């Protein structure tokens, strides 16, 4: 606004000094009109200039204001939260936006063979030559001097945006380099089978631990969230490795068979053992019960016997024989011949049939 007043005041006296012909009056009118436009334009320009300093900070962002190149505020206080903000336009103030809460990721393929995104998507392997050219195909060397392929993806978030932005030209590149290094480091300490099959989790953990150490040591101002590691044998040795896996499977099959045999044998044995004990137990009960009942019977019979042993014996014998004869299926009575000898009797035993057949001969 201030710039506009001088024109107004200087023009004031100019009018009456020069008596006017129609032409110059028209010119002065025109000039006055254009000065008016200039005034408005200048006001607008100033407003636009100041207004260009308005900026918004998103939910996932923080901003840092630099006044004459120096950050306003120290450390965390320098961070402007989400919302509308204003700074003087350059060169007095500037602002830098940083995205913070989004999870960022870097991937390391330093240990992976060369593969195009199309191949990666379709899941097919690029053709493998007999050798690996270290300039093209990445790989890692293991603790037992073998070659494996391994790659990793690291997710992290920025915990100290000021550091992340103002201390590193390319912080995410630095993180990727640390991840590359961590993969090589872990592989160099793990024998091939541990890294690929037996201790995949341990391998992963070592990569994670190493990369965390590195980024902390380098003060990158980030927090590692997760680290995914994928490893595989060289394509050239695919079959050899698969055969080992197959052998392992066969082995566990053989072992499982043996274990099921073990279960079978043991459970049968313990069942048999139990039944033997049970049989013995019931034999014992029977024997004892029998003998005790005999003893009782004996006690009862003893007085009778003592009264007349012969009669008793005869009585019992006959009685028993009577019972036996009633039960017997067949009874054969041999009469005595004239010579006082019993007749001969021949038996034909049929082994096949359960029933015996007999044929009295006379």
């Amino acid at each position: 606004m201030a710039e506009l007043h001088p024109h107004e005041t200087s023009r004031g006296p100019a009018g009456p000094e020069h008596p006017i012909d129609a032409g110059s009056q028209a010119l002065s009118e025109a000039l006055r009109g254009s000065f008016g436009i200039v005034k408005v334009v200048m006001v607008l320009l100033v407003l636009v200039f100041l207004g260009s300093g308005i900026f918004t900070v998103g939910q996932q962002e923080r901003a840092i204001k630099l006044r004459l190149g120096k950050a306003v505020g120290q450390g965390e206080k320098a961070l402007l939260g989400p919302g509308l903000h204003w700074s003087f336009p350059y060169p007095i103030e500037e602002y830098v936006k940083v995205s913070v809460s989004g999870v960022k990721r870097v991937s390391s393929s330093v240990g992976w063979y060369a593969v195009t995104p199309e191949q990666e998507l379709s899941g097919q392997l690029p053709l493998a030559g007999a050798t690996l050219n270290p300039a093209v195909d990445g790989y890692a060397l293991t603790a037992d001097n073998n070659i494996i392929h391994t790659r990793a993806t690291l997710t992290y978030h920025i915990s100290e945006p000021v550091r992340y932005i103002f201390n590193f030209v390319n912080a995410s590149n630095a993180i990727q380099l640390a991840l590359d290094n961590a993969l090589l480091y872990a592989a160099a300490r793990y024998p091939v089978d541990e890294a690929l099959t037996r201790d995949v989790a341990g391998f992963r953990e070592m990569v994670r631990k190493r990369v965390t150490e590195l980024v902390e040591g380098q003060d990158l101002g980030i927090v590692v969230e997760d680290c995914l590691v994928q490893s595989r044998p060289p394509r050239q040795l695919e079959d050899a490795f698969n055969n080992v896996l197959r052998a392992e499977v066969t082995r566990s099959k053989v072992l499982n068979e043996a274990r099921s045999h073990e279960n079978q044998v043991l459970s049968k044995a313990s069942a048999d053992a139990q039944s033997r004990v049970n049989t013995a137990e019931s034999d014992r009960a029977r024997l004892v019960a029998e003998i005790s009942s005999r003893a009782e019977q004996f006690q009862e019979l003893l007085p009778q016997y003592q009264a007349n042993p012969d009669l008793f014996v005869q009585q019992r014998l006959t009685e028993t024989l009577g019972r036996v004869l009633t039960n017997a299926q067949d009874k054969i009575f041999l009469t005595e011949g004239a010579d006082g000898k019993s007749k001969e009797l021949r038996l034909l035993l049929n082994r096949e049939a359960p029933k015996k057949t007999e044929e009295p001969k006379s």
Partner: protein
Amino acid sequence: MKKNPLTLAVGILLILIVGLLLFVFQVRQSEVAVVTTFGKATRPITDAGPHWKWPWPIQKVYKFDQRVQNFTEDKLTEGLTQDSFNLLTSVYVGWKITDPTAFFPRFAGGDDPIVEAERVLERTVANAKAAVVGQHPLSDFLSPGQHNQFAAIEEEILGIVRRDVQANDYGLEIEFLGIKKLGLPENVTQSVFERMTSERQVLISKSQFEGEAEAQKIRSEADRKAAETLANAEGQATQIRGKAEAEAAKYLAVFQQNPELANFIFRLNALEGSLKDRSILIFDQHTPPFDLFRGGFGAKPSTR
């Protein structure tokens, strides 16, 4: 034309602004700068904010990014380990400009001082690597557990590079250094593959053999255990039977009152028990009660 005070103020303001633009420069948080007087570096500036200078052509300001730069060796360099293995290595370095007055005269000549500096760094790093790799056997790089010197080797290289950078006064500082790639010459990889294949063979036969052996062990162990269990049970059963005998023996005293009678009863019971069913009896006339047929008691013999 009369000067209005406001016009005057605006004029002064404009002159001030032009003057400030000429005499003041600002250094950003992420930068360091050096002020040169007639082309000679005279004043380093490491604090962010506004600073004074004489206008061009007396003084000039050169600003440099002072953040940590990542430098990565493009190529793998080959080096012999102590035990004569050919090892390819490449490393990455994080470095930054710390002393702009020392940095400026050395590197600001070219188009991009950062690229110039990295060219020098590349040589320094290559020398340091060559010196360190040759002092370690391969097993220092690659081995499980405590013996692994991976991190220590990186420290050694870093130490040498740092010493070199300091001795030459490049105005740089090395923040970190790490191995980015480890490799073997291409023709060696094939023999590694061959070795790995034979290792796989060994593993296959080992797991076959071990599997069979272990299965055999499990089976025989199971059989042994089963036999043992049965034998134990047999022993227990015998014991139980023995106990039964002992209990039965207690009744012996009862029978001893009259052994003859006892014998008789036992025999009767045995007889009855053995002829319980499906038996065929054959008698002659002497057997009671068939002796009746002989007319033992005066009855008439009769036949059936």
